[in-house]
């Protein structure tokens, strides 16, 4: 940052842009929470167990495992996606 820049910033010309970060974080978390919203009550516990099992073999973060339950007519499909460390 140049001297001139910092002078103007201190004079209240600062543009913060943290609202952009807030918006992006919100979009992601809200989309995630909506996708799990209508799932059965056992889903979070099952997700926890799957994380534990996978972690016996490979080291992954809970965030690297995506579990989704979709219903198609009268059957449901459980989709488990694990991103393994490269």
């Amino acid at each position, binding site marked *: 940052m140049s001297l001139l820049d910092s002078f103007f910033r201190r*004079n*209240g*010309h*600062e*543009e*913060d*842009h*943290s*609202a*952009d970060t*807030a*918006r992006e*974080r*919100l*979009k992601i*978390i*809200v989309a995630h*929470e*909506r996708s799990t*919203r*209508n799932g059965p009550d056992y889903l979070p516990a099952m997700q926890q167990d799957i994380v534990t099992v996978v972690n016996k073999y490979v080291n992954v973060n809970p965030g690297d495992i995506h579990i989704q339950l979709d219903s198609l007519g009268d059957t449901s499909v459980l989709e488990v996606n694990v991103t393994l460390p490269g």
Partner: protein
Amino acid sequence: MAKIIVITSGKGGVGKTTTSAAFATGLAMKGFKTVVIDFDVGLRNLDLVMGCERRVVYDFINVINGEARLHQALIKDKHSENLCVLPASQTRDKDALTKEGVEAVLSDLAKDFDYIVCDSPAGIEHGAMMALYFADEAIVTTNPEISSVRDSDRILGILQSRSRRAENNLEPVKEHLLVNRYDPVRVSKGEMLDLEDVKEILAIPLLGVIPESPDVLKASNKGLPVIHLQESIAGQAYMDMVERFLGEERPHRFLEAPKPSLIQRMFGGK
């Protein structure tokens, strides 16, 4: 048929009670018989914002328990003929709000009033569930702030799955977004979520935008719902919201930062 409207949010302190008081007062000013109920058992506040705290004798739970008649617990507003307040209990615990009890009181009120406004407590516990369960419409009150928006989305999910209308496969609860404490100066600096961002994320129809305003605190200090302050931008925004709710077209106001004057610009202020 009386319409039941819940003022809800999930997150605490976003302006539910302020909005309940202003909205109910506005409906009454428009000629509708309106009652506003405080569901915040143990943390009664609506009486203060409405300025009737010294006239509370009986409360909502006394009525549910049959310790008082409904007409004994209802407090007539001092400014508006058409408005009554049903205060929350300050002493009991929330479990005293039974679903059957709440339903019985609401159906009694429905005989005499056009609108029943329910001021929800924060959270998603029992008190908040009881406030939203019987609602026909919901005003989801949100601040342009990350936790508030997320919690509002949570509440929308609950309205869509656990309300009476959802459980009985009736027409869904009609959802309205109310953005409160909007500060266009901070939005223009990029430090507060833009109205468009909030609308896009929550994706429900916008009923109103209430600006951040010192008048809200001044009004609650006096026990006067801010909608009575006709010079106040917050009061005007609440009246717009009421009129929009009643089906009138009103453009959203107070969304832009005031332009800095020439002098302010010359001296580097904002």
